[in-house]
């Protein structure tokens, strides 16, 4: 990322007006293939995490383009909001759902992939052709005039809080609504009242009070602190309660043997 960042800074500092400079051309031809490649890779990646990382590459490239196009505010927002917040949210949900649920690349819908590729290609060709036909020779004016020497952020703020103030307020309402909606969607009503610690203690006492204190933790005096390594009692014997029941599959207990060897068997 380091050379990339350097180039970005160079391009941002050098670009001043409408016509593209050589810096910008270097930046574009360097980053555009990276962005396209990352985008294609994202579509083809088996793992969702890889796809997210490749998307981050595309987004950062776009942030660099924004700086080159005299939109430093958007570039920062792109990095903070998209790369920082949105993508992290994606990864967070990915972790919740399960990372290892890799996508099978076998297509189930008959002809879907072929049709999608053909139509997509056609769409791209059509868009490019239309743009080429529509633009022809065009001289960009640059945003310098609009900023009127106040700088990008100030100019945007003036517009945002005057001309677009109602839209801005509407977005605030939208965000609040979205936050509430997410809470409602993610919230799960408990089917029964949560048992308090007091209640659980009472139950345990009523059962006969065998284990009043917490169960012993695993891995005491062992070369491992893995959860399937049982603890040893002061006399050197194994404390079975220290390992969860469903982990006690391996009766061989190699770690226990090692532990016994190290501290000596008192028996």
């Amino acid at each position, binding site marked *: 990322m380091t050379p990339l960042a350097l180039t970005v800074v160079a391009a941002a500092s050098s670009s001043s007006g409408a016509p593209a400079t050589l810096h910008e051309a270097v930046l574009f031809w360097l980053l555009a293939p990276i962005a396209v490649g990352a985008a294609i890779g994202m579509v083809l990646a088996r793992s969702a995490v890889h796809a997210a990382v490749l998307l981050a590459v595309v987004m950062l490239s776009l942030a660099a383009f924004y700086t080159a196009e005299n939109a430093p505010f958007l570039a920062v927002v792109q990095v903070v909001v998209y790369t920082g917040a949105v993508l992290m949210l994606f990864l967070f949900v990915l972790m919740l759902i399960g990372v290892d649920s890799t996508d099978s690349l076998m297509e189930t*819908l008959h002809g879907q992939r072929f*049709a999608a590729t053909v*139509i*997509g290609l*056609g*769409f791209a060709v*059509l*868009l490019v052709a239309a743009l080429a*036909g529509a633009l022809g020779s065009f001289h960009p004016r640059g945003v310098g005039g609009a900023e009127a020497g106040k700088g990008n952020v100030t100019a945007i703020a003036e517009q945002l809080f005057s001309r677009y103030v109602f839209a801005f307020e509407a977005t605030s309402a939208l965000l609040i609504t979205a936050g509430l909606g997410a809470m409602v969607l993610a919230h799960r009503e408990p089917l029964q009242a949560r048992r308090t610690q007091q209640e659980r203690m009472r139950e345990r006492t009523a059962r006969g009070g065998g284990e009043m204190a917490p169960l012993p933790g695993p891995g005491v005096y062992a070369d491992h602190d893995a959860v399937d390594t049982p603890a040893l009692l002061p006399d050197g014997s194994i404390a079975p309660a220290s390992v969860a029941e469903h982990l006690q599959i391996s009766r061989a207990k190699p770690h226990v043997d090692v532990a016994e060897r190290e501290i000596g068997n008192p028996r």
Partner: protein
Amino acid sequence: MTSTTHYVAATGVFHLTFLLVLLPTVGAAVLLLGGRRTNPWGHLLGCAMPILSFVIGVIEFVALIGRDGGQSRQLDQHLWSWVPAGSFHANVNLLLDPLSLVFVLLITGVGSLIHVYSVGYMEHDPDRRRFFGELNLFVAAMLLLVLADNYLVLYVGWEGVGLASYLLIGFWSHKPSAAVAAKKAFLVNRVGDVGLSLAIMLMFTTFGTFAFDGIFNGAASGHAHSGTMTAIGLLLLLGACGKSAQAPLQSWLLDAMEGPTPVSALIHAATMVTAGVYLVARSAAIYDVAPHARVAVEVVGAVTLVMGAIIGCAYDDIKKVLAASTMSQIGYMMLAVGIGPGAYAIGILHLLTHGFFKANMFLSAGSVMHGNNDEVNMRRYGGLRKVMPVTFACFSFGYLAIIGMIPFSGFFSKDKIIEAALDKGGFEGGFLGTIAIVGAGLTAFYMTRLMAMTFFGVKRWPKDVHPHDAPRVMLIPMAILAFGSLVAGYLLILGGSLQHFLTPAVGGSVEVGAHTISPVVLSLITLAVVAGGVTSAWYLVARKPIPAEPPTYVTPATKAARASLYGDAFNEGVFMRPGAYLTRALVFFDNRGVDGLVNGLAALVGGTSARFRRLQTGFVRSYALSMLAGALALTATLVLVRVG
């Protein structure tokens, strides 16, 4: 007939007219809605209601006699406005005039006797209370029918008696035959009811009212087109045919005998089936201006008269013989009311005497059945006169009355009809008179056959049957009706009393002195024919042993008569089969044509959608791919537009 009809408002005791209808209605409501808790006293209430109505009827009769003749004997009681909508008025009014009062007395009088009889007859039936409720319902509906002062209310009563008849024929609906018979009666009646309702609608569009007085005055004024009046007359006749089991709607009455015997006596002999006669007599003013319709009435009466008599000769079921006899006798009445002015009263006279003797015979037949374990086949009777003397005596009175023996009631009424038919003169009069005389002979034949098979000869009943006379509660009504069969005719004809009484309602009597044949000679001829019928029946039936099964080797005429002259076969062949074919064709068209089109369209849409549906894979990425393809197409279009 007075030139204009005008009803005076009811006053004094005539205010009670509404009670005539209300009392049986209350009885029916209590018994049918009251449920099982009315079981212990239900039959008593059921009897009390028609008896109370009868008492009111008698009081009003006495009061009516006390008034001057003519229009002051036609009293109208306004109850309430039923449908007062703009210019459309339908009032619920009751008309008490001589004609309706005669019917009220017949319905409540005979009805009360039959109610009392039913107490004994239905004693062991678990549903006796419901039976009485439905009988009361019938009485109420029938009274509403005859007391209505307009055709709309008459129609309500008309439908009411149809409903009661349906319920009572199907009273033992656990028997499939009874259920089918009830349905058949209802359906055939429906045909007639359609005729009546069309007639009422036509009258309303022609005269703008439902009320009797308005319609009759309108008809008498002669403004209406004669074709319209003929149509009204024919439609009314169709209604009358349905209710009175006249040809061609006669087929239901024989099956209606599936009902309990008191029902057959009350509804299917004495009262409801005469409603058609009442309708024609009540609509006299319409038939006065519709001579063609009047001829149709005569023809229907004459045809049914002979038809019923022939059918009656062939059946072995005692009730069905009586039912066929009822058809035949109502044919006489129709003939009489068809003959027209002057003969209306004779038709009503025969209706009354028939009400007595036919109810009497039905109740006696019920008594016979009661004593023979509900056996109706006359071939299993024989010699019952010794074991059931009272029943035999009562039945004999009815028998002598129906064949027209002096001095029993039938003699007076039936001879008068024959006389009136012949007096009409010309070919028409001769033809109708001859038919009526032949009918009398046939009546004598089949009734003698019935008597011989039932009460004479050797006993043919099975060993485990012990025939006996019915209990007293059944015998007393029978005896009263038998007495009526004896004297009713004479009392009613005495001094032309009934005819004079009925004059305000149906017009005056035939002028004396215009007879084609002298009444005495005619009576002798008729009696001779009747004697011939009796003798031949006696010779053919009583002198030979009667086989337990009807002989199969018979003449085509007998076969036809046994099949009710192919009435059912005719209905089946002419209406039912083509109807079924039409229905089948329509169903085929509906299934293949209409449904085929609709279903085909639906299948097309469904199939197409099923294919398009495949595009909905549910995979978001597929949708996204289509979006990108769309974006590509859109961009391409934009570029092309700009380039172009």
